[in-house]
């Protein structure tokens, strides 16, 4: 596996610099909104995907009792008089129940994951259009080979959507890529609340459980990657993308923040 660098913008002459500056000014002038809102909406995708799955289940079971079981959105925490807390808890419980679903009904779990991924794909396939039209002088879309597309994802797509670039891009120059994000932005503040769990878990088991809980959230960037590739000429059925956890190197791990980085393994088959 050779390591391809992900260079920043090169200052190779006054012409390039002023073009870059103009692009930056244009970008600054574009209408914007609060990143917190954007971030929170992205996070809401997961409970929403779960809720849709639940409501479809309820729809199917028309006759007799509906065994909601772990699909129930109602919180069982006693002493819940506070409406806001109660309603919020049912949506927060959705993310915990989703992990339970993984064990109880794999088909439904995968259906939820697919839903999250397809949201990412729809968004990803339109992002490249947006960024092309922004006329970023450091991206040239003519004759974009696969490596350039991957660099585009690592640099521009990630920067725009998540606020930072991918840390590392590795490739074997034969269609396999590893995109490594050591501090994947949306999950940095995630912390599992142990008292929600039914049994007491050891420290290790808790960590494993935490990773399992966060898995669905990773389907969204997986979808983004596939969507961008799709829009730039690599159809969805030719692309496989899997997200796994990556250990952080010692220098990178700071106190707080999510304990693992994310490794996106992308495999593109050519015919």
């Amino acid at each position: 596996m050779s390591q391809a660098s992900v260079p920043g913008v090169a200052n190779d002459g006054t012409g390039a610099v002023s073009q870059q500056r103009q692009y930056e000014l244009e970008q600054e002038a574009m209408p914007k909104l609060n990143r917190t809102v954007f971030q929170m909406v992205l996070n809401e995708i997961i409970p929403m995907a779960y809720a849709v799955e639940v409501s479809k289940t309820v729809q199917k079971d028309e006759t007799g009792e509906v065994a909601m079981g772990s699909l129930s959105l109602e919180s069982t925490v006693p002493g819940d008089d506070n409406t806001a807390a109660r309603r919020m808890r049912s949506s927060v419980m959705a993310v915990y129940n989703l992990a339970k679903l993984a064990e109880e009904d794999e088909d439904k779990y995968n259906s939820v994951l697919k839903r999250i991924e397809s949201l990412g794909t729809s968004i990803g396939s339109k992002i490249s259009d947006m960024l092309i039209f922004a006329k970023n002088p450091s991206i040239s879309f003519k004759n974009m080979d696969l490596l350039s597309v991957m660099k585009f994802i690592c640099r521009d797509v990630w920067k725009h959507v998540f606020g930072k670039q991918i840390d590392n891009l590795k490739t074997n120059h034969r269609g396999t890529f590893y995109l490594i994000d050591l501090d994947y932005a949306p999950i940095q503040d995630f912390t599992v609340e142990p008292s929600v769990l039914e049994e007491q878990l050891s420290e290790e088991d808790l960590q494993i459980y935490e990773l399992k809980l966060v898995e669905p959230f990773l389907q969204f960037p997986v979808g983004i990657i596939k969507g961008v590739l799709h829009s730039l000429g690599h159809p969805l059925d030719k692309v496989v993308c899997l997200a796994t956890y990556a250990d952080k190197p010692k220098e990178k791990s700071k106190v707080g923040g999510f304990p693992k980085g994310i490794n996106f393994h992308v495999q593109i088959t050519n015919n």
Partner: protein
Amino acid sequence: MPQSRSSSLSSSNPANAPQVRHLKALGDDTWKNKVEKVNAEFFHLTYGTIVAQLCEEYAGDYARVNGELFQIGYNLGVRLIEDFLARTALPRCDTFLKTSEVVSKCAFKIFLNLTPEVAHWNAARDSFDLVFGENPLAEHVELPPGASGQLWFSNVLCGVLRGALEMVQLDCDVEFVSDTLRGDMSTDIRVKLNKVLRDEIPAGED
């Protein structure tokens, strides 16, 4: 409901002008300097995709889509209110008029970089409309056929307002009453105060 009513209720009253100016300045300043920003088009793209997917999943049951969008908004609202209060530390609004001004000039500015107009107060002064020109979350959106009479595209905003106001002990009904996406003249959200949740007001405030 025993809310104190000032005799001058319109925000164009000169006595209220410095307060309104202060709110506007606070909103503008916070937006400019104290907030991380993202390109609006990414948000619109994301939100639009969510709405589209919900419409597809619920196959035309737009009431459910509205409900889902509202729920998403509600979850956002109860979280964003803390961000808003920590950032601005604004005192409790003593009139619903004040609430409308804080919402329109400060809150919407800080989170969406928008300042809707406040209009259509009712006679009892417990209901107002937030008026947007175009639908604020819909850029180049066309509603699918059949949705026009039923889908409220930006229903998430109603959920946000309901959740946030509930956290500061105001029980309100929030809903869309018109939408430019449906061909209406403007996009209006109606906020109606049902009651102040006196029992839940934290101790120590008079």
